[in-house]
C-alpha cells in the first residue's frame, strides 16, 4: 500500500494496464509529452514510447472516432477528453458508434475502449470547465458509466474499465483529484494522504464495474450519490448529526440495484445527490428506480439535491454547488417529512 492522490492512482492504473497488455494505447490532447493538463498520463510516453502514448490534434471527434477504429482492429484505447465539457464534439462517435458497434454487428466488431474525462466544479472553472454530463451517457444503451470518488477506487476501476470488453465512460471529479473535498471551500484542503481511501495497493487489482460501495453505514436515511458528493454527504450527515447510510454508486450503468434496495428498505428514507443539473439528471433515474422498487418501504418522498437548472456560474460557484448546508437542510426535511 502506498498513499496516492487520485491523479497518481489514475497514472498508476495506466502503468499497470499498459504493462500487462501491450494492446493498451493512451492518447488525447496534451497527454503525450506533457502528460495531460491534470498530469494523469505523466510519464507514460517516456516509459512506453510514442506508439503507445501520444498527443493528438484538438479534435474530440477524431480522438474517439480513431479509438473506435483502433478498438475494431483489436487494441484497447484509453483516451482522455481534456474536460468533460468538451466531449460534445465526440458525442456522435460515442453514442452512434462506440455504444452500438457490438450490437449492430452482432459481436463481429467490438469497441473495448475507455473514455476518461475530468468532471464537476469547485475549481472556479466556469460553465465550460465544471460540467457533469453523466446523464447524457446513462441514457445510451451500450455504454457503461463509472464515476470515481477516491484514489483506491479510481485505480481499481480504471484497470477494470480498461480490461472491460465494452466501452466505458470514466468520469473523474476534478475537485477530488488531490483530496476528499467535503464541500467547504473555506476550510484548509485535506490531502489524500490523510484519508484511508488514499491508501492504494501496488500492482494489479480490479474493482468490478457495476458494484456500489457502502461508504458509511447508517439507519436514519439512505444517500445515493457518487463522485465529489460522497464526501459532501458525509460532511452534511456529520454536521447535522444524522445517521445517514451513504452509498457511493461508483457505476451508474449497470447500476447495483441490490445494494440500493437493501439500504432504502432498511432506512425508509432516501436522498439522491449530484452536482449535475437536476432536470433529467441521473438522480431522476435513481428516484424513479427507488420508488418503483421500494415504494411501500418509503416513509417520505425521495428528495433530490442537485445542481440548479442553470449553467455552472463562475463567480457564484458555491451557490450552485450542492454543499453541506443545502444537503443537510434537505436531510432534515427528509427526516421531518
Amino acid at each position: 500500500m502506498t498513499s496516492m492522490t487520485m491523479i497518481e492512482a489514475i497514472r498508476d492504473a495506466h502503468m499497470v494496464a499498459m504493462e500487462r497488455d501491450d494492446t493498451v494505447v493512451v492518447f488525447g490532447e496534451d497527454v503525450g509529452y506533457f502528460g495531460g493538463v491534470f498530469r494523469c498520463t505523466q510519464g507514460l510516453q517516456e516509459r512506453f514510447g510514442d506508439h503507445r502514448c501520444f498527443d493528438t490534434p484538438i479534435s474530440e471527434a477524431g480522438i474517439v472516432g480513431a479509438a473506435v477504429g483502433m478498438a475494431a482492429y483489436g487494441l484497447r484505447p484509453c483516451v482522455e477528453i481534456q474536460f468533460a465539457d468538451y466531449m460534445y464534439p465526440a458525442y456522435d462517435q460515442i453514442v452512434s458508434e462506440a455504444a452500438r458497434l457490438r450490437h449492430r454487428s452482432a459481436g463481429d466488431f467490438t469497441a473495448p475502449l475507455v473514455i476518461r474525462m475530468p468532471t464537476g466544479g469547485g475549481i472556479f472553472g466556469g460553465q465550460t470547465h465544471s460540467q457533469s454530463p453523466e446523464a447524457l451517457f446513462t441514457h445510451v444503451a451500450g455504454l457503461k458509466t463509472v464515476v470515481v470518488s477516491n484514489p483506491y477506487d479510481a485505480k481499481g476501476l480504471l484497470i477494470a474499465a480498461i480490461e472491460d470488453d465494452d466501452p466505458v465512460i470514466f468520469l473523474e471529479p476534478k475537485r477530488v483529484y488531490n483530496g476528499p473535498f467535503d464541500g467547504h471551500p473555506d476550510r484548509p484542503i485535506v490531502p489524500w494522504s490523510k484519508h484511508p481511501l488514499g491508501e492504494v495497493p501496488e500492482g494489479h487489482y480490479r474493482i468490478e464495474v457495476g458494484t456500489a460501495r457502502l461508504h458509511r453505514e447508517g439507519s436514519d436515511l439512505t444517500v445515493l450519490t457518487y463522485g465529489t458528493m460522497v464526501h459532501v454527504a458525509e460532511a452534511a450527515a456529520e454536521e447535522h448529526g444524522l445517521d445517514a447510510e451513504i452509498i457511493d454508486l461508483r457505476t451508474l450503468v449497470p447500476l447495483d440495484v441490490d445494494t440500493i434496495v437493501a439500504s432504502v428498505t432498511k432506512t425508509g428514507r432516501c436522498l439522491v445527490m449530484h452536482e449535475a443539473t437536476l432536470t433529467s439528471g441521473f438522480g431522476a433515474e435513481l428516484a424513479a428506480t427507488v420508488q418503483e422498487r421500494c415504494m411501500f418501504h418509503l416513509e417520505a418522498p425521495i428528495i433530490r439535491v442537485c445542481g440548479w437548472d442553470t449553467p455552472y456560474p463562475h463567480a457564484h460557484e458555491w451557490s450552485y454547488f450542492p454543499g453541506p448546508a443545502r444537503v443537510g437542510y434537505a436531510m432534515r426535511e427528509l427526516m421531518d417529512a
Partner: protein
Amino acid sequence: MSDREPTPTPLRLRIPQPARGKHPPDRVRYISAAGEMAKPALDEKVERIALMRKQLVRVLDEDGSAVGDWVPEMSVDEKKQGLRTMLLVRSYDARMLQAHRQGKISFYMRSLGEEAIACAQQAALRPGDMHFPTYRQPGLLISSEYPLVTMMNQVLSNAEDPLHGRQLPVMYSSKAHGFFSISGNLATQYIQAVGWAMASALRGGTEIASAWIGEGATAESDFHAALVFASTYQAPVILNIVNNHWAISTPEDFARGASATFADRGYGFSIPALRVDGNDYLAVYAASQWAAERARTNLGPTLIEWITLRVGAHSTSDDPSVYRPPEEAAQFPLGDPVDRLRQHLVHLGEWDDAQHEALQEEVDAQVDEAFAEASSHGSVKSGDVGSAKTMFDDVYAELPRHLREQRDRLEELP
C-alpha cells in the same frame, strides 16, 4: 473608415441550384481522354499531383483499348473475373429491388452504375485489409466471395440474418471479409478507418485500411477529423470519395462548394489526391493499387475522388423524378462500367456476345438460387424474424441485470 466606400454593395449569397434543367454531361467537371494523365511516382510531391487536379485517371478509351501510363498489370482472367463480379453485383441488386417491389423486404439501396469502384478496388487490395464502407459498396463483399445467401438473409432480416434483424437492409458487416459494420450515421466510418490504419501501424502490422464516403457526406465533420489525423500521423489508409453527383436531392456542388473538385480537399492536408474515372474498371484497379502501395510503403494516405453517377434512386424510399432529369443516366459521359469492361474484353478478342449472354445467365441463375434459399428462411415481411429475445444480446458483452429483467418482462407479456 466608412467614408472610403460611399455606396456599399448589398450582400448576396450564392445558393447552388440543382442541375435539373441542365444537360447532364455538363455536370461532370474536367474529363480527360483515356491515357492522358501521367502516373506519378509513389512519392511524388503533393504539389505536383495537385497540378493534375483537373485531369482524370482513365485507361479505357472509346474503343475499349487500354491506354497510357495507368494501364494496370492484369491478366485476362482477372478482367473476366471483374466482369463476372460486376454482373453479379448488378444482378443481385436488381433481384433485391424486385424483392422490395414484391413487398418481401422493407428497404433497399442500389449501387447501380457504381459497381466498378468497389469491385476493382477490392481486387486490388489484400485479405486482411479493412474497408470502412458506406451502404453503396456491396461490390466489396461480393468480389471477396462473401456468400450471396448471407447478404440476402440480412436484407430479408430473416431468422438466418447474421445480424439478427437488428440493422436496416444493406447494412452488412463482416470482419472476416474486411468489411466494417455499416453505420446509418454518415461519415463516422471515415475517421474510424484512419484509426484502424493507425492501429495497424502502431502495432507494426502490414494491413491497410480503406475509407469510403459519398461526395455529399464529405460535408460532415468526421471527414475533417479523418483528414487531420491521416495527415498528422501519415496513416496507411486510402480515402475514397465516391462522387456519384447526388446526395439524395442535392447535386454535388452543395458539398463541393466553390472548389473545383473533391480531390482538391486533400491538398490542404498534403494528402496526394487523384480524380479517377469510376466507371473504368482498369482505372479503378490501377489507382487503388497505386494508393495501396503508397500506404504499404509508409508513404501515408491517398485521397481518391471517383467520378460516377448514382443511376437509380437514392433508396427505395426516394422519388428522384421530383429533382432529377430523366435521361441523366443515358447521357452520362463516362458510360456504364459493365459495358466498358465488356467492350475491352471484346476488343482484346477475349469475349463475345454469346459468352456474355452465357455469363449473364449463369450469374442470374446464381442469384436466383441464392434468393430461393434465402427466401426459404422467410423475411421480416412474413414475420420469420427469429426470436425477439436476441435484441437484448450484444448490447454488452454480458447481459447486465437490467437487460435481463427487461428480457424477462418481454417474455412474460401476453
